[in-house]
C-alpha cells in the first residue's frame, strides 16, 4: 500500500462512497433519502474523477512532461 499515491487513495475512497450512495438511492423508498443519496453520490463520483486527473497531472509534472 506504501507505493499507492495519496491522491489515488482519496479518489478511490470517494469512488467507493459514491458507488455506495448511488446503490443506496436505488434501494431506498424515502424521497428525501433518494435525493440526498443521489446528489451526494454523484458529487463523490465526480470528485473521485477530478482527484484521479489531479494525480495523473501531478505525476506528469513530476516527470517534466508538462514543461
Amino acid at each position, binding site marked *: 500500500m506504501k507505493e499507492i499515491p495519496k491522491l489515488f487513495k482519496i479518489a478511490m475512497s470517494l469512488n467507493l462512497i459514491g458507488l455506495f450512495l448511488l446503490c443506496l438511492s436505488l434501494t431506498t423508498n424515502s424521497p428525501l433519502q433518494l435525493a440526498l443519496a443521489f446528489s451526494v453520490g454523484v458529487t463523490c463520483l465526480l470528485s473521485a474523477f477530478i482527484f*484521479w486527473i489531479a494525480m495523473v497531472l501531478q505525476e506528469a509534472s513530476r516527470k517534466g512532461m508538462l514543461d
Partner: protein
Amino acid sequence: MKFVLIFFAVFNVVFLIILIQFWSHFSTKTKKIIAFFCLGLFPVFWGIGVAQQNLKETTAVGFCNNCHIMEPYVESLKFNYENSLDVPLASIHYQNNWVSQKVACYECHTRYTMFGTFQAKLTGLKHLWKNYFTQPPEKLELYKPFSPMECLRCHGTSKKFLTEIKHNKDSDLITALKQEKRTCLEEGCHEVAHILKDKKDF
C-alpha cells in the same frame, strides 16, 4: 434493472480491490487503464443508468404516496364513482386503465414538452423541501391551472372528443383549449378531478 446496476457497482469495487492488492505487480500502463475504467468511464455510464432508474422509480404512484400529504389524493384514485353524482377524472382514468396505473400521477401532472420530465422533477424537489423542512399548506393547489394540453395529448384526436355535442356548441372551444386559453376543468365541464374523503378538491 436495479440489481443489474448494483451488480455492476460490485464489479467495479472488485476491480479497484484487485488494483490495490496487486498495485506493485501491474505495469504503469495497466494501472492507468484500470483506473481510467473504474474512476472515469464506468462511473459516467453507470451514473447515467442509475439516474435513469431513479427517474423511473420517482414516477410511480407509490413514490408520490410516500409523503403523508399525498395519501388522500392517491386514495382518491380508487374512489367508487359508480354511485356518485360527480365522476372524478382521476378515478375514472385510473380505474379504467386509461392511464398506466403504475404512473397515474405522473402521466397527468407532467407536461409533455421537451423538458417536461425535468420540470416535474424540479417541482418534486420543491415539494420535498416543503414537506420535510417547512409546514406544508393545509389545502393543496396547483401552481398553474391544469393545462388542457395534458388531456388533448390523448383526447385531442379522438372521434369521441371531436364529435361530442358539448365540445362543438362553442365553435372556438377546441381552438381555445389548444391555445391553453381555456381548460377542461372549468365549471360546468369536467370540474372534478379528485374526490377526497371529506371534500371535493382539484
